[in-house]
């Protein structure tokens, strides 16, 4: 016990990661961590939410309740957002470069140059306020499933605000989890060769349990361990991506979630039906990007996504940065948000859709995004037919100096990858990249080539990083 906090017996390392953890919360944490059938935990993480952050999240929650108004989606951002940008103006290089000294209030909004993933990939430092407290910064590395693998900064209060948004969306589907010490709220499911996994408890959810889990059988003590672990902790709802949920279904893991919240890639209608029938619960599509945080959720009554948070300004733009006419498809572009390290100013998401401002029968007053063309779910197959999640491919690609890539697996298993390196015509790493991919896929043919024009061709600016001719399910 010498390494433990003498006051309440909580490991100081855990207290550092979960500053508001209570004794009861800690007991649940230990129970999950040390359970006989627990998976190999690869990481230690907490919400990093202290009193200040918790207060911030609660204020955000109140705003979510009161400020989700249609007026937030007009020809110009709301005054509150422009004022916020004015305060940031002289502190963010990118803002200074794009908006004259007079500031945002009287400047023509549509004249402001847009930004995109490439800006975050190449010049992240120009997007972070120069006086930001870097000690508070957390870095999230994106999977790169939409083009550039990114390092996205955020703060604990920024990611903490996902929780009230999840609650809001669950409530829209009639799901109201009970948050209390000793009870597990949610498991975040992954089905990958390798990923970060950890158990924790969340202060905003009143010390409820949360775990990030990889259901890959090699991560568990025995083949039945996932089943025992899920049975023991009974997560009230699950978050994950379609591939992981499909794998969970295939493994017949016994779980009775009140909802499945699916993220990362668009879910096909077929899989959605299959999951909803099998688990007898709503399957909720959640539109969120690491760079922007949650943007929308799938409406329970219509075939569209409602804008979720009240503090973002959403536009649909054409390729020249102009708003498209009402009812026309455009690139979903976000301004605002609550990430203190990455305030977004006309951030092009790379996703396309049609903004609709008409009233919705579901009762949510926020505008909708119809025909959202996000990322299609794809799956790759190893030489022996075992599924490979694109995130695993992404993990490999991320280790090389690559700005963008396109990876294709053909029906016969052969793979082709084209990459645009950070340094022009740098082919020095291609052999190592090929070897690393062979390590993941096994004995399949993998060809690697440079493509310096990727993303800059007039006819095919949109890069689809992962394509597969393999079937999503066996």
């Amino acid at each position, binding site marked *: 016990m010498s390494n433990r906090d003498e006051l309440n017996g909580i490991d100081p390392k855990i207290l550092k*990661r979960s500053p508001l953890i209570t004794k009861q919360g800690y007991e649940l944490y230990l129970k999950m961590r040390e359970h006989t059938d627990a998976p190999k935990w690869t*990481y*230690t*993480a*907490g*919400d*990093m*939410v202290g009193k200040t952050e918790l207060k911030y999240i609660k204020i955000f929650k109140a705003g979510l309740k009161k400020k989700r108004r249609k007026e937030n989606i007009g020809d110009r951002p709301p005054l509150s957002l422009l004022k916020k940008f004015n305060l940031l103006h002289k502190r963010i*290089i990118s803002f*200074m*470069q794009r908006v*004259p*000294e007079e500031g945002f209030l009287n400047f023509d909004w549509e004249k402001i140059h847009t930004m995109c993933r490439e800006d975050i990939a190449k010049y*992240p*430092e*120009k997007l*972070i306020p*120069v006086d*930001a407290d*870097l000690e508070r*910064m*957390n*870095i*999230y*590395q*994106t999977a790169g499933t939409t083009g550039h693998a990114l*390092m996205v*900064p*955020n*703060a*604990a209060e920024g*990611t*903490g605000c*996902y*929780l009230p948004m*999840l609650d809001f969306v669950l409530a829209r589907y009639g799901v109201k989890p009970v948050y209390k010490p000793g009870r597990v709220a*949610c498991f*975040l499911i*992954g089905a990958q060769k390798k990923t970060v996994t*950890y158990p*924790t408890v*969340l202060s905003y959810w009143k010390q409820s349990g*949360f775990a*990030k889990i990889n259901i890959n059988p090699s991560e568990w003590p025995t083949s039945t361990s996932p089943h025992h672990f899920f049975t023991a902790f009974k997560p009230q709802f699950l*978050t*994950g*991506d379609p591939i*992981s949920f499909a794998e969970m279904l295939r493994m017949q893991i016994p779980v009775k979630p009140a909802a499945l*919240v699916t*993220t*990362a890639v668009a879910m096909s209608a077929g899989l959605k039906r299959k999951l909803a029938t099998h688990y007898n619960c709503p399957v909720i599509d*959640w539109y*969120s*990007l*690491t760079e922007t945080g*949650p943007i929308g959720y799938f409406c329970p009554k219509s075939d569209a996504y409602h804008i979720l948070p009240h503090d973002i300004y959403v536009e649909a733009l054409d390729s020249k940065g102009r708003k498209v006419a009402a009812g026309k498809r455009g690139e979903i572009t976000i301004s605002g948000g609550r990430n203190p390290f990455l305030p977004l100013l006309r951030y092009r998401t790379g996703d396309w859709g049609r903004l609709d401002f008409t009233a919705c029968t579901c009762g949510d007053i926020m505008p909708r995004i119809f025909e959202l063309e996000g990322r299609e779910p794809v799956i790759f197959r190893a030489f022996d037919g075992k599924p490979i999640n694109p995130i695993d491919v992404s993990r490999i690609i991320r280790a090389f100096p690559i700005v963008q890539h396109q990876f294709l697996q053909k029906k016969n298993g052969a793979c082709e990858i084209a990459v645009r390196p950070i340094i022009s015509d740098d082919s020095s790493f291609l052999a190592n990249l090929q070897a690393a991919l062979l390590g993941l896929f096994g004995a399949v043919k993998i060809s690697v080539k440079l493509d310096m024009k990727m993303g800059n061709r007039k006819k095919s600016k949109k890069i689809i990083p992962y394509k597969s001719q393999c079937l999503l399910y066996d």
Partner: protein
Amino acid sequence: MKKQGPQLDYLINRLADCPPEFMLQPKAGKNGKIDMSAVVTDFIRDLSPSPFPLITYSNFIKANKDINYLKLVLLCCWLLHDEWFTSKTGYAADSLKLLQEGLPPMAKIVKAEKFINDAERREELVRYCLMYLNLRPQGETKAHAEDRLKTMSSVARNKFIKDSVQVQKRLQAIRKAMAKKAAAEAASKATRE
């Protein structure tokens, strides 16, 4: 920018033709060759039909020892000491305001020589001077002139950002912190993206 001034190209060419003597070292204390007070006095006198209180400009010139600023003052004296301005009345006070208040911030950002050698900078300085004199280039609307000046100013800002050692140091620190933090633990997130 209420009134029309001279043609833009005319002034830009005049700036490009600035005699090299104007870029000699201005006198600041005991050093330098150009007598600032004499140049500024001649300039203001030729713009003003009635005697102008010398004290108002000799003081600021004497007080300022920033060589780049003084060079910029010389450059503007050359630019505006043109018949277009000297043949009219009413530009002395605004010109003095330009020298006293308008040029110090610019001098902190860009080297005076750049305003001769760099085409973009030449245009920027011409437009900037005209703005202080409440003029716009001949043939331009007020809106167009304002818009162009904004564009030019943003170029100056970019330049400032690029050149500022302090900003560069901070940007490097951010990059370094990001690399360090990428290897560290992040706060948990409840959903995938």
